[in-house]
């Protein structure tokens, strides 16, 4: 009974992960400029990775593949933002202007 429940849960997670991957890909084509496309990429990089790896870990159960999956997922989630930051920062420094209004928030720092 519990096995069936875990099976269904893992299929739900995998399906949602596949949907997230697809939506991110569509967003990468639809969104109008570079800085907004990063958001679509981060949808596939974060959420889809989490969902698909969680689904596969449920399928594998307590075994060596689960540990390996966990290690790969942690590695992707720790290095993904670093690569994205390097990319966004390189674009900013090269003079590609974000097409957006700017809000500054400097008066909120209450150092204490």
């Amino acid at each position, binding site marked *: 009974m519990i096995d069936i429940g875990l099976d269904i849960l893992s299929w739900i997670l995998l399906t949602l992960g596949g949907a997230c991957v697809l939506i991110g890909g569509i967003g990468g084509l639809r969104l109008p400029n570079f800085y907004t496309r990063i958001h679509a990429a981060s949808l*596939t990089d974060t959420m889809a990775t989490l969902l698909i*790896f969680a689904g596969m870990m449920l399928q594998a159960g307590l075994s060596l593949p689960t540990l390996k999956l966990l*290690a790969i997922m942690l590695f992707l989630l720790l290095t993904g933002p670093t690569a994205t930051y390097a990319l966004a920062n390189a674009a900013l420094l090269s003079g590609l202007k974000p097409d957006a209004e700017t809000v500054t928030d400097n008066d909120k720092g209450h150092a204490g």
Partner: protein
Amino acid sequence: MYILVSIAILVTMVLALVRALLGPSVYDRVLAVNVFGTKTVLLLSVMAFLNGRPDFLDLALAYALINMVGILAVLVFFQSRSSAKERAESD
């Protein structure tokens, strides 16, 4: 079910390739290649379960390492080139 997920990942890889070909700026292309790389890692992991061959997970980890270093290397290359161009223009 793994088939469905791998088809979704493959479609997204094709969409990322289209963006890499269309992309107006260099950074759009690098972003698309980055997406392509991380989706390859996902596809390899799903393949490991689809075919019941857990050793594919080792390939996925190796590809994740290579992809990360590769993207950073490409970015350093473009950054040093664009700053060199700036220096040449200001002289």
